[in-house]
């Protein structure tokens, strides 16, 4: 099987999957329950999610391992199960993806701040190394380090995955639009700073996830492209920002709203398009149809 970057070099636009967290909730994940534990306790439900995105036409599917690092699992007293839970996560998505689609092993932040001496660089490196290796053992083609806001943590995660697995390494950060209309992560990192630093650290694909709907993601893609013409860009956009009504959180952007912006984000320079919070297999299905029609 070829690599993701080879497909992109052929000029293909690839489609990634949609939300996992909100989907798990719909299937009954309770507040306070560890999502990654479902890889062992309810693998059938996790498989359904992965398969529904493959059925929607996605070229790649993530794994249910976003919070599968030692620090997050420790919050559920599951830190001894880093290997088991991550390997199972990748195996489930591999089963859904078959041999023709890609599996992206999801790696999220630890929630610990280097700046506040809550964690050392070595501890972070080891946590990301252990998680990435388990995802590779379960069959992941790539590691996608996502929802990062601190550039140092992101760089450590990229290096840990790159130096300890044969997987392609993707890294996306989460940006907010600030009062000046520019984009910055919570820690003050711009898309420009991210691009220079993560390419240097060894990421083969970079981009943005969460925090924004498609409209603002287009601005982020343009900024990345302005300083780097070649680095493949992945976008996992929210279905807009959440609304709350009658005890439920809903997202405003419909599948056709999202699909309606696909052409523009590709023209801006995106190579892989998928969804984050609030996006569903229907969103991915419509995105796939637009990509195929181009």
């Amino acid at each position, binding site marked *: 099987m070829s690599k993701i970057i080879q497909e992109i070099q052929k000029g293909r636009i690839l489609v990634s999957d949609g939300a996992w967290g909100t989907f798990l909730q719909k299937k009954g994940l309770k*507040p306070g329950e560890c999502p990654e534990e479902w890889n062992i306790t309810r693998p059938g439900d996790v498989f359904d999610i992965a398969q529904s995105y493959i059925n929607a036409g996605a070229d790649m599917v993530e794994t249910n391992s976003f919070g599968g690092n030692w620090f997050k699992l420790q919050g559920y007293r599951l830190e001894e199960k880093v290997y088991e839970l991550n390997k199972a996560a990748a195996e489930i998505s591999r089963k859904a993806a078959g041999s023709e689609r890609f599996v992206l092993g999801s790696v999220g932040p630890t929630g610990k701040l280097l700046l506040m001496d809550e964690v050392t660089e070595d501890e972070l490196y080891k946590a990301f190394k252990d998680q990435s290796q388990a995802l590779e053992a379960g069959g992941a083609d790539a590691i996608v380090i996502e929802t990062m806001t601190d550039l140092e943590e992101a760089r450590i995660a990229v290096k840990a995955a790159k130096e300890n697995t044969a997987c392609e390494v993707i890294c996306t950060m989460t940006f907010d639009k600030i009062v000046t209309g520019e984009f910055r992560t919570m820690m003050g990192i711009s898309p420009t700073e991210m691009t220079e630093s993560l390419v240097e650290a060894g990421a083969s694909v970079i981009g943005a996830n969460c*925090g924004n709907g498609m409209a603002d993601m287009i601005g982020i893609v343009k900024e990345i492209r302005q300083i780097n013409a070649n680095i493949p860009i992945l976008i996992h956009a929210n279905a807009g920002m959440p609304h709350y009504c009658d005890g439920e959180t809903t997202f405003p952007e419909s599948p056709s709203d999202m699909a309606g912006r696909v052409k523009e984000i590709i023209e801006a320079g995106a190579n892989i398009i998928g969804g984050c919070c609030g996006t569903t297999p229907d969103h991915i299905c419509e995105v796939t149809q637009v990509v195929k029609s181009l």
Partner: protein
Amino acid sequence: MDDLLSKLSECIEFGKINLASPYPPQMKGQDGADEITRKALDEGVNPQDILTKGLMPGMERIGIKFRENKVFVPQVLMSAKAMSTAMLHLKPHFLSGAAKQKGTFIIGTVLGDLHDIGKNLVGMMVEGNGYKVIDLGTDVSSAKFIDAVKENPDAVVGLSALLTTTMVNMEKITKDIKDAVPGTLVTIGGAPVNSDFCTKIGADNYSPDPQGIVEYLNAKIL
């Protein structure tokens, strides 16, 4: 004395913790919040003045810069660190009653949510603005909030959530607190919430940034 206090407020604003700290680069080799607070106390400066004329103006300035997106989380964290270092020297004076905090703020991340960066940031900013802060941690149930409110009458409660999946728990917790101790004020914050959500769940205030909470407390607690 005024000179010491204005230097102290600068240390807080720019996150200068102590003499040894290399941050910020432009203040390298200078005394930090640690040394200056000690010195002020040794010289007989009133602990209350150290709080209100030294620490609070510095915290207010960084809070406003943060709201205006002129600085980001790392700079605020350094300021908060400088502030907590100074507070260690002042604690005995709060306990003895020689210096008074303005009121009590109870904060926690709601049930099901383990994220604490935003909650910690708010807690430190509120403390630096002269309040006693009771931090209940993450994954906090209604019962824990209610116990803390009963132990600290007139405290204002702050609820934090990062996830779109846990913000919904704010509604029940707000209701439970208000049922158990009527009249308790609840302010909410976190990435997915907004003022519309605040109104819908019956909370009293939403603030998109820590400075907004400080201003809310200043208006409500007298």
